[in-house]
C-alpha cells in the first residue's frame, strides 16, 4: 500500500460515460492482486471530499501500467472524465483482499454485471496464467454496457452476453444464462461482481451446485484502509460487521449476506 501522486498516461472513452484510464506505477503494479482496488482523489478542494474506490482493471507488470475502467455516475467520476494525459491524481493502493487464485489447470466461471466487469479482466488474466479455462458471462442494461468486452477475448475461452433490452446477446438477465453454462462447462469455481441482486442469484445457484463462489462487494468508503469502520457489510457467521475495504472487497459468497 502506498500513497502517491500519479500522472495520467492515457484516457480512452469506451462508450457513453465509460472510460478506461491508464496510470503508471511499477511499485503498485508489482504487488497488485486481482480483485484489489485503489482510491482516487483528484481535486484539491472539498467537494467532492472523499477519495473514491476503483478496482484495478488490468496490470502490465513489465511497463508498470495499470488500468481503471470506470463509469461516470457522480462528482468524482465526472471530474475523472475530464482528465488528460499529464494531469496528476492522488492514488492510495493497492487496497483490500483480492480473489482467491489457487485454481490451476481447471475451469472458472466469471460473471460480471454492469461495471462489475471491471475487476474481472485482471482476474481472468491471472487465472489464464495458471492454465485455467475461463468462461465469462456478462450482463448489462444495453449494448452500451458491453463496449469493453473485447478486453476479455484473449484470456477467456467463451464469452456469453445478456442485455436487459436485448440489444446485444440474450435478452434478459445474465443469471438466466447460468444454469445452462454451469451444466455445459462444469466450473470448479465461480467469481462474480455486479449488482447485489445479481450476485445473490449467483450465490444461490452456486450453492445449489455446491461450487465455491467468490463475490466482490461495493460500498461507500471513507478511509479505504480499515480505520473509519464505515464500509461494513453483513456477515453470515460472525457477530462483527466485516469491512469491505480490508476484509474484502472479495468474500466467499457464503460468508456475507447479499440482500442489501
Amino acid at each position, binding site marked *: 500500500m502506498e500513497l502517491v501522486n500519479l500522472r495520467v498516461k492515457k484516457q480512452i472513452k469506451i462508450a457513453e460515460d465509460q472510460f478506461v484510464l491508464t496510470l503508471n506505477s511499477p511499485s503498485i503494479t508489482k504487488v497488485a492482486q486481482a480483485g484489489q482496488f485503489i482510491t482516487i482523489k483528484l481535486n484539491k478542494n*472539498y467537494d467532492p*471530499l472523499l*477519495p473514491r474506490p476503483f478496482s484495478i482493471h488490468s496490470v502490465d507488470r513489465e511497463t508498470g501500467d495499470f488500468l481503471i475502467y470506470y463509469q461516470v455516475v457522480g462528482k468524482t467520476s465526472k471530474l475523472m472524465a475530464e482528465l488528460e494525459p499529464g494531469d496528476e491524481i492522488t492514488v492510495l493502493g493497492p487496497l483490500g483482499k483480492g480473489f482467491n487464485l489457487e485454481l490451476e489447470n481447471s475451469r472458472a466461471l466469471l460473471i460480471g454485471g454492469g461495471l462489475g466487469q471491471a475487476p474481472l479482466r485482471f482476474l481472468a488474466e491471472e487465472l489464464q496464467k495458471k492454465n485455467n479455462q475461463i468462461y465469462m458471462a456478462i450482463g448489462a442494461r444495453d449494448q452500451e454496457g458491453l463496449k469493453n468486452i473485447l478486453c476479455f477475448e484473449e484470456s477467456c475461452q467463451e464469452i456469453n452476453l445478456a442485455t436487459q433490452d436485448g440489444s446485444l446477446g440474450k435478452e434478459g438477465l445474465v443469471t438466466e444464462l447460468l444454469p445452462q453454462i454451469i451444466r455445459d462447462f462444469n466450473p470448479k469455481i465461480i467469481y462474480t461482481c455486479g449488482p447485489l441482486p445479481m450476485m445473490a442469484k449467483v450465490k444461490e445457484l452456486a450453492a445449489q451446485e455446491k461450487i465455491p463462489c467468490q463475490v466482490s462487494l461495493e460500498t461507500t468508503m471513507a478511509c479505504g484502509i*480499515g*480505520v473509519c469502520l464505515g464500509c461494513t457489510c*453483513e456477515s453470515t457467521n460472525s457477530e462483527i460487521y466485516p469491512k469491505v475495504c480490508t476484509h474484502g472487497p472479495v468474500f466467499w459468497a457464503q460468508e456475507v449476506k447479499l440482500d442489501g
Partner: protein
Amino acid sequence: MGKVNLAVDIQGLRLDNPVLTASGTYGFGLEYSQIVEVCKLGAIVTKGLTLEPRKGNPGKRIFETPAGLLNSIGLENPGVESFIKDYLPQVKDLGPKIIANISGNTIEDYIELAERLGNQAGIAALEVNISCPNVKAGGMAFGISPQMAAQVTKAVRKSTTLPVLVKLSPNVTDITEIALAVEEAGADGVSLINTLLGMAIDINSQKPVLGNIVGGFSGPAVKPVALRAVWQVAQKVKIPVIGMGGISTWQDAVEFILAGATAIEVGTANFYNPQAPLEILAGIGNYCQERGVTAITDLIGLAWKER
C-alpha cells in the same frame, strides 16, 4: 531564523508538538503508519474504547455531504481488554504519546475504563468522550448536561492519575457552560468539538441514508462552528483547549490556535489527505518562523488576547 519551539504542555501532558489525530479517524495508528510518518505526530488519540467489545451500528454508516461527512459507526471497538492485550504493545512503539479515548454507558463504566487504562504503560492521557451522537445509552446524554458532564469528569478524575481531557459536544445551546462544569470538576483540558448531529435522506428509497438514521457530522463543512466553539470556550476556561472540527490545512490549524487552542486534532481530513497532519505540522512551524514567533504557545488565543 531560529528554530520554533512547538512543544505544548497540557497540565502535565507534554507533547513535542500540538498536532494530534482525532479519535475514530486513525484507528490505533497502525494502519496509517504504513504510509505516514506517524512518529512525528504530537499524539495519537485512539478509537473510542468501551468496556466490552462493540460491534457498532447496522446498515449504512457513512455518507458524504457537501464538504462534510456523516458517520454512524456507533463506537465499534474491540473493547478495552483486547485493546490492552492485542494492540497496545504495538501501538506504544509507534512513537507518539497515546491518548485513550473512552466511552461508557454509565459512570461506573467510565470509572472502570479509567482504572483499567490508568495503570497501563504507554497511555499518556485519557480523553473522555461524553459526546458521541451515535450510541443510545450514555454517549451524548452526558455531554449535554453540565451536571452529568461534571459527574463523569469527577469520577474519572478520581480514578486515575493520568491527565484527563473531556471531549465536548457542539450540540448544545451553550458549550461554555459544559466546559466550565467539567473544568470545575477537575478536567485537565477540554477537547472540542465532537461531531454535530446531522442526517441525510435517500430520495429513491425515501428513507434515511444511515442505518442509525442520524449521524455525526464532521469535516471542513463544520469548521466555522468548531472554531466558534473553541473561541468561546478558550476565553472562559483556564485549562487548555484542544481544538478540532474540519481542520485540513495548516491555515485551519493556525486559526484554531489563534482562537485559543493549545493543541489541535485532525480527524476527517486523514481520509482525504493522510499527509494532512504532517503538512499541518510543517506549515505551523513555517508560519511561526516567518513571523518571528519562537514558541507556538505564544500564538494561543492571540485573536482575542490583549496585546
